[in-house]
């Protein structure tokens, strides 16, 4: 992308339409009748050749002059290569060199090497800046401070080495904020896979310092080694060493995978780990004799890719539309109506329910086993499933349980927060077992799940494990509250989060903003009203998801119609936050020693100014001027020579 240093000089572009207007006036020639034009035709070379050629040649002069003016105006605007910022910045680069960065990606390159390459690109793109580099490890260290020499900064960056520690993001960002506050135009760039990243204690609200997050590494393998350490065994003396490692599953489902540990090429340990959702397992191994690199390998087989799709900004506004799909809908209809703020629609008896699947609802309430099983075919993403069938999301039923008392949850259930659950009991419920796919589970007495929620980024399934009509559950008071809370959760889900994260596949629902879209393209502008990306929406329907472009800076962004002027209202806005802590699989091949000493900086070769295209444009303008002159005088030369 080209950036212009003197954009105000674009006012001179007015000369182009003026030139065209003058040319039009010139074309409005005075018509004079003459006895014969045969002699003129012999003289004027413009009148030779085909009519198409005549038309083209008659405009060549205008074309040349317009190009000349365009080149001149372009030179006045002083364009430069995109990224080569003319602005002197205070850059602080946080380079992650923790254990997870040892992961070798598909191309064979480790994440650490990729991160350093990206950091080097940022360095090269900001030649006028002073650079500080922070090594991120358990104790963040300053690798370079206030370096203004590009080569020296690059050398110090390349000297940053891999460690086997865990990161301390909070300390690193505190240090970075402190360093950044010293100079003008401060920016903090973090290069990491953000495996253990947490925004707690880190200011992600864009203020004076802008934060850029450069995510490296794949996002589909979410099982990894979160801890790794080799220490001398205190019990057996220095001859033995303890190898400590922790494998963690960051997925929302249970996975099994083989783990093997080798020491100096010899196999030390091999086993199959089965980890529940977000569970972890640690091992301590002993090795004798020491020496040789320790290698921990995780071989993946059938692990499912993470559903990392988020969406937001799709709320219709005040009223949620709810569909009740049941043979006996009156109970649910009454309970939903009592909840208030909901537009309830009921599937009439005898009407095929499949025709409702493509219609837009915010919530579907159903006790129909067949429809619950087909929930993936609905356009609506939020379900309240009453008595879901055996096998739904891993649910398995057992015997009937009578007089099930409700146990108060030890952790919050958002959708039942305002319900007094302590006094509630259910007359009869089947014993149910659920897999880890369900996040929030409210148990009855004897460990019988009564409410479960499968929460995903863009949808939710609320499962009610009993039939409220067959129990003595206090229906008239509790169920409207339940539905009201579910509606609140759905409303939050579909309307509130216009907040996305760097590194995620961020998608925005088009439904709400679709009427405001004019033209085939949207422009993404940051808080400084700078165009940062363009999105083609010509092929999207109102029900589609709008994929947001990959952005690296946190802060507020706005979407504008590309055809609209600068003062137009935005179509939508969203916030981009720091990456979510998604831990990824790693294969540490070696544990390096302490960091090497940084090599001495070479001779200063720091570029003092940005690479401007203005001289090239001025040369082009001069060339065009010469061509123009040659063209205007060509006929005279040619004809004169012919007569001679």
């Amino acid at each position: 992308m080209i950036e212009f240093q003197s954009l105000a000089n674009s006012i001179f572009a007015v000369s182009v339409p003026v030139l065209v207007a003058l040319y039009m006036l010139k074309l409005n020639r005075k018509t004079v009748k003459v006895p014969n034009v045969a002699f003129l035709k012999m003289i004027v070379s413009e009148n030779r050749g085909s009519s198409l050629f005549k038309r083209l040649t008659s405009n060549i002069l205008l074309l040349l002059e317009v190009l000349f003016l365009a080149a001149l105006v372009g030179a006045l605007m002083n364009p430069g290569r995109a990224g080569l910022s003319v602005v002197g910045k205070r850059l602080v680069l946080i380079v992650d060199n923790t254990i997870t960065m040892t992961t070798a990606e598909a191309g064979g390159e480790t994440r650490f090497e990729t991160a350093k390459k990206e950091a080097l690109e940022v360095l090269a793109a900001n030649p006028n800046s002073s650079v500080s580099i922070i090594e991120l490890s358990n104790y963040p260290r300053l690798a370079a401070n206030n370096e203004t020499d590009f080569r020296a900064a690059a050398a110090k960056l390349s000297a940053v080495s891999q460690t086997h520690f865990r990161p301390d993001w909070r300390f690193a960002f505190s240090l970075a904020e402190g360093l950044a506050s010293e100079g003008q135009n401060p920016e903090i760039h973090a290069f990491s896979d953000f495996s253990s990243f947490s925004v707690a204690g880190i200011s992600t609200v864009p203020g004076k310092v802008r934060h850029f997050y450069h995510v490296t590494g794949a996002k589909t393998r979410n099982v990894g080694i979160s801890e790794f350490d080799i220490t001398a065994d205190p019990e057996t003396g220095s001859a033995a060493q303890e190898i400590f490692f922790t494998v963690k599953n960051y997925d929302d489902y249970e996975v099994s995978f083989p783990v093997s540990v080798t020491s100096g090429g010899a196999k030390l340990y091999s086993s199959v780990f089965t980890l529940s959702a977000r569970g972890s397992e640690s091992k301590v191994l002993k090795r004798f004799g020491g020496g040789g690199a320790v290698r921990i390998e995780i071989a993946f087989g059938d692990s499912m890719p993470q559903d990392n799709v988020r969406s937001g900004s799709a709320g219709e506004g005040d009223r949620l539309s709810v569909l009740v799909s049941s043979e006996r809908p009156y109970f649910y209809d009454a309970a939903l109506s009592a909840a208030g703020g909901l537009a309830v629609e009921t599937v009439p008896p005898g009407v095929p329910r499949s025709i409702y699947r493509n219609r837009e609802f915010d919530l579907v309430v159903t006790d129909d086993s067949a429809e619950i099983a087909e929930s993936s075919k609905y356009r609506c993403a939020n379900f309240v499933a009453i008595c879901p069938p055996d096998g739904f999301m891993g649910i398995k039923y057992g015997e009937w349980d009578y007089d099930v008392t409700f146990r108060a949850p030890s952790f919050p259930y958002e959708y039942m927060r305002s319900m007094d659950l302590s006094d509630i009991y259910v007359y009869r419920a089947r014993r149910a077992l659920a897999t880890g796919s369900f996040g929030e589970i409210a148990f009855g007495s004897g460990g019988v799940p009564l409410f479960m929620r499968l929460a995903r980024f863009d949808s939710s399934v609320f499962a009610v494990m009993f039939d409220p009509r067959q129990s003595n559950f206090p229906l008239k008071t509790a169920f409207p509250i339940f539905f009201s809370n579910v509606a609140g959760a759905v409303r939050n889900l579909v309307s509130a989060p216009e907040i996305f994260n760097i590194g995620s596949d961020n998608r925005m629902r088009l439904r709400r903003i679709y009427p405001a879209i004019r033209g085939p393209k949207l422009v993404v502008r940051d808080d400084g009203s700078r165009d940062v990306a363009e999105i083609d929406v010509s092929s999207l329907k109102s029900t589609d998801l709008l994929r947001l472009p990959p952005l690296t800076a946190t802060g507020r962004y706005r979407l504008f119609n590309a055809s609209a002027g600068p003062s137009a209202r935005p179509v939508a806005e969203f916030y981009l936050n720091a990456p979510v802590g998604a831990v990824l699989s790693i294969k540490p091949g070696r544990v390096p020693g302490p960091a090497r000493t940084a090599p001495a900086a070479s001779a200063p070769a720091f570029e003092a100014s940005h690479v401007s295209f203005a001289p090239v444009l001025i040369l082009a303008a001069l060339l065009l001027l010469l061509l123009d002159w040659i063209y205007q005088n060509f006929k005279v030369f040619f004809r004169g020579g012919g007569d001679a």
Partner: protein
Amino acid sequence: MRFWEDPEFRKKLDTVRLIMKNRARGLRFGENRSRYFGRGIEVSHLKNYAEGEDVRFIDWNSSFRLGRIFLKVFSETRENFIYILLDRSASMEFGSPETKFTTAVKTAYCLAHTALSGFNRVVLAEFSDTLISARTVGRTDINGKFAAVMDSPPAARPTSFERSFGEFFAKFRRRGVVFVVSDMVDAPLSAIERLPRMALAHNFCVVQVSSPEDSALPESGEFKFEDSETGETVEISMTPDIARRFAESYSAFSTGVSKKCLRYGGHYFRLPCGSDPAVAVRGIMLGAGMGLAGND
């Protein structure tokens, strides 16, 4: 008042007589020498008398001197065919102080009048892209016929020497003298190519009527020049150089016509519009070697 009613014009016109070098081929009596023998006033030669011949033409002097009877044989004077080809194309409307067409008509009138005074047969043919009309002009109706020509403006048609001359040659096969009164300019500039064909059929004289517009253009400004005959346009930014080159082109063209005429035994006379036609005709005659100064 018509121009021919002007006493001064008549006076000038009467001083010109047409004498043809070529032998007349007409059938009727005229003032031109012909290849025919018969009645006349100029004795051509003597011949032996044969019985029955008219004794009034016996040359008694020769008869007595030589002892035989000789009869005088007279050479006859016959009429000659004068064809006047008058250009009526749209380009003839230009000119100042009078149009080329007016000058051409006056010149044609003078030519016709002079020819008729010498007892010749005059055919006035008008052409543009085709032969518009061709009519015999006599001494009694010359004024009327030229009045009709004057009253009808030039046709808004292009010039086609190829077609109009072709039609003329097909219609008038008797050899005579052709006066082409025209600006000699058509779209393909093909007048020169027609002259050899004309030289085969007739004696000819080209009277090229010219106007300032033929050779002078503005030296500066943006113009769209429209051809008065074809409507074709040429857009050009005029410069002194282009104006000069235009004038040179026209001059070169006129010189080319002139050289071609002389090469094929014809005559050429350039006549700026507004010229005195009587004087011009005298010049034409002298230039062509067939004029005779009268009593002026």
